[in-house]
């Protein structure tokens, strides 16, 4: 009886604390599980090709409301929302260039349809979009085998800027190779090249920049790309204005008698 009173009080407080702890444990484990599910689902995001104007990966994951209005408004119907249980994060738009490439509509209807700004309205010109980057498998590219394929170059909406054709002369008995070269400063990643590539499995394909693009780093100083005190002396002289027709022809080109005139 004597310890009933105080222990009764204590035990009710104890019960309360235990209840609180139990509640916290349920919330904690549930929350952890939920958070794990989310992170796990978002993990595949780097492999996705998003519509033009898509924010950077994490921001896009946060901002996309999964409504599919971009899918509705895509004229060539290439966009899909990832169904659950697929390889990409759930419910967000993506395209597969091999089966459906972005046709780069100048008015960017998919971006305009986006209600949240996950496809950013900052994109004004479709040529500035960077959905992905074309990458060439040089082992399987027909052009690298010496065939005059060049299809990717010809179908490229930014032909000459995003994909250029570089002639590579070979021995005398073989004709030159004309090999496609992708320029990341112009390639939008639309995927028209991948769709058009005639090899059984596309030898040129679009991949997210993050997966393929390197970075040279700040510490490499490519002296020939900018002027220094030393290099500016070796730069070719700017083309002088063409001499007037009646101007007297100088006896010698300037600088030719540099040594004889005691310039040293």
């Amino acid at each position: 009886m004597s310890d009933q009173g105080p222990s009764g009080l204590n035990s009710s407080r104890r019960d309360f604390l235990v209840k609180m702890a139990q509640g916290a444990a349920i919330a904690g484990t549930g929350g952890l599980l939920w958070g794990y599910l989310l992170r796990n689902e978002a993990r595949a995001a780097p492999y996705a090709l998003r519509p033009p104007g898509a924010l950077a990966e994490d921001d896009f994951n946060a901002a996309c409301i999964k409504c599919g209005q971009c899918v509705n408004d895509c004229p060539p119907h290439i966009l899909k929302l990832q169904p659950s249980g697929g390889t990409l994060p759930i419910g967000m738009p993506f395209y597969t260039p091999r089966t459906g490439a972005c046709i780069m509509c100048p008015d960017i209807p998919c971006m305009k349809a986006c209600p949240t700004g996950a496809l950013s309205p900052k994109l004004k010109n479709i040529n500035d979009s960077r959905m992905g980057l074309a990458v060439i498998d040089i082992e399987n590219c027909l052009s690298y085998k010496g065939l005059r394929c060049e299809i990717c170059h010809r179908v490229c909406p930014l032909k000459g800027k995003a994909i250029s054709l570089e002639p590579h002369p070979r021995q005398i008995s073989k004709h030159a190779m004309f090999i496609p070269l992708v320029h990341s400063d112009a390639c939008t990643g639309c995927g028209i090249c991948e769709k058009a590539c005639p090899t059984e499995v596309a030898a040129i394909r679009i991949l997210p920049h993050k997966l393929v693009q390197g970075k040279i780093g700040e510490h490499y100083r490519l002296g020939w790309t900018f002027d220094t005190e030393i290099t500016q002396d070796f730069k070719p002289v700017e083309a002088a204005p063409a001499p007037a027709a009646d101007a007297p022809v100088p006896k010698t080109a300037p600088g030719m008698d540099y040594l004889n005139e005691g310039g040293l």
Partner: protein
Amino acid sequence: MSTPENTVSRRAPPEGAKQDLGRLGVFVESAQSSLGKGADALASVEKLHNRTLGARVWSWRYIILRRVSQFGFLLLFFGTAHWGWQVAKKVPLLTGNLSASKFIGLIPLTDPFAALQIFLTGHALQQQSLIGAAIVLGIYLLIGGRVFCAWVCPVNVVTDGAAWLRNKLGIQPIFHLPRTLRYFILVAALLITVITGLAAFEWVSPIGMAHREIIFGLGLGFTALLAIFLFDLLILKNGWCGHLCPLGAFYSLIGKTALLRVRFDKNTCTRCGECARVCPEPQVLNLKKLDERGYVFSGECSNCGRCTPICPEGSLKFDFKPLIRGHNVQADAIAVQRRTR
């Protein structure tokens, strides 16, 4: 025109055997009322069982309307996505899905809960989705937040089916969960959204999954529906909609001040309990509290319209909140007149 006195006087002269029987019934009923409430209630239940087939079918009107509404919304989205439904050239009818949509290319609609989550990830929402969320919020503030649950949400079809089958098979519960659990899940969803930077419920929502995949291509979303069906059928009665769904919890909070309500007339109610038997959220039909307020005031009521047609005395009716007091005052007056006569 027809004041209570009028109607009474018109009924007064007996016009046939049927009328006599009716009056006799009324007499018996009033005699029983002095014995106790149970007899009244039993009479009410009796009345319910003796309904004609027509009356029975008529009492399904809200369920039929709800199915039409639920499948209708789904069809509008589907038709726009797949069959290019449009109101004019290049003006699609209803693009998007329940997360966010655009009606006739003009009116944006956004799921306010999804918008809230995206806001909490730290993303500044664009004006369009804010306007859309405001419109949807405005509508549900007026007609009741959980009108979404009963009239729009596609999962409701599944859970209603499970509840119906569970009732038919008489499956007993394994355990009970508090119905307030959904509010904790709601808070958890918002917290996890802040912590992970991902809209926590939108990424795992079986509603979103199923709905999206019906419109935009099939995936494993139907397994989520199947899981909910089995959970509701075999494990917990009204388990998903009534205990777990944080979207329903969100709309319960929205619906607290809604104007469209089920009016409760305490004078005609015989406490038969038929309404609570069919109600998926029976805690909202706490008759003692309804006596005081005169209407179903809980935000958890989804205005599904199960109780209103089933009530044998017509004590539950849809009404607008500002009108309810007047109605009930009138009903009180009629009741007083009856008693004094």
